[in-house]
């Protein structure tokens, strides 16, 4: 794989916008179509939101790392965090009556729908990985 461009963020809600601005800039730079850039912003936002939520639940403060590998024919994107669990298999999107502003299932399902090759790897934390056509 190629050298990644990497963004590291504290697991706090205020940084999710930084993650999107980064993803959009990198996506465009590598020639990702504008509609796919829009999907990429959503997927990155969801992955970070899930990670922030999990860090908060588990009371840990390790950073979230976003890596973009400028591979061909697709960028490989990875959001790695030290907290979190893979959404159950088969769950596409479940409009669970969310009691609060976030339910981790929503985000995972959206990522899977937008990027069908998305993988959720539990490795003492959670790494979300998907590829983005360019």
């Amino acid at each position, binding site marked *: 794989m190629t050298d990644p461009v990497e963004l590291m963020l504290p697991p706090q809600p205020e940084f999710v916008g930084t993650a999107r601005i980064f993803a959009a800039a990198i996506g465009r730079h590598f020639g990702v179509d504008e509609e796919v850039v829009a999907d990429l912003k959503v997927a990155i*936002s969801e992955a970070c939101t899930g990670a922030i939520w999990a860090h908060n639940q588990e009371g840990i403060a390790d950073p979230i790392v976003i890596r973009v590998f400028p591979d061909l024919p697709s960028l490989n994107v990875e959001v790695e965090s030290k907290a979190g669990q893979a959404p159950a298999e088969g769950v596409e999107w479940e409009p669970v009556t969310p009691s609060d502003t*976030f339910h981790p299932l929503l985000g995972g399902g959206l990522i899977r*729908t937008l990027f069908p090759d998305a993988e959720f790897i539990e490795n003492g934390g959670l790494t979300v990985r998907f590829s983005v056509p360019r």
Partner: protein
Amino acid sequence: MSDFSVDARSDGDWVVVTAAGDIDVYTAPRLKRALTEEIDRGHHHIVLDMTKVRFMDSTGLAVMVGGLKKVKAKKGTLELVGPNDQIRRILTITDLVKILPVHDSVEDACRGKTT
């Protein structure tokens, strides 16, 4: 980051809530609070003007589903105005378009409401 503002104008039991900027894990709680306040004030017909929202993710969907449940319990409504393509896309993917009517303008949305 994630610029966001929310603002409401009410008339009888209905209200136009205007959101602007990004709706995400950082800002969704503010949208939620705004909707809850309006509902608590007896405004059970909510038109959410999203014309100026540039980004929304599942945190915003969750707020809307939550708001919809509350207004429905009061026989009210929650309708959307002017979501951009990105927002329409996630409303469609999640099937929420089926329960959250989408209008092109506040006038269109209110027309339905006042008749």
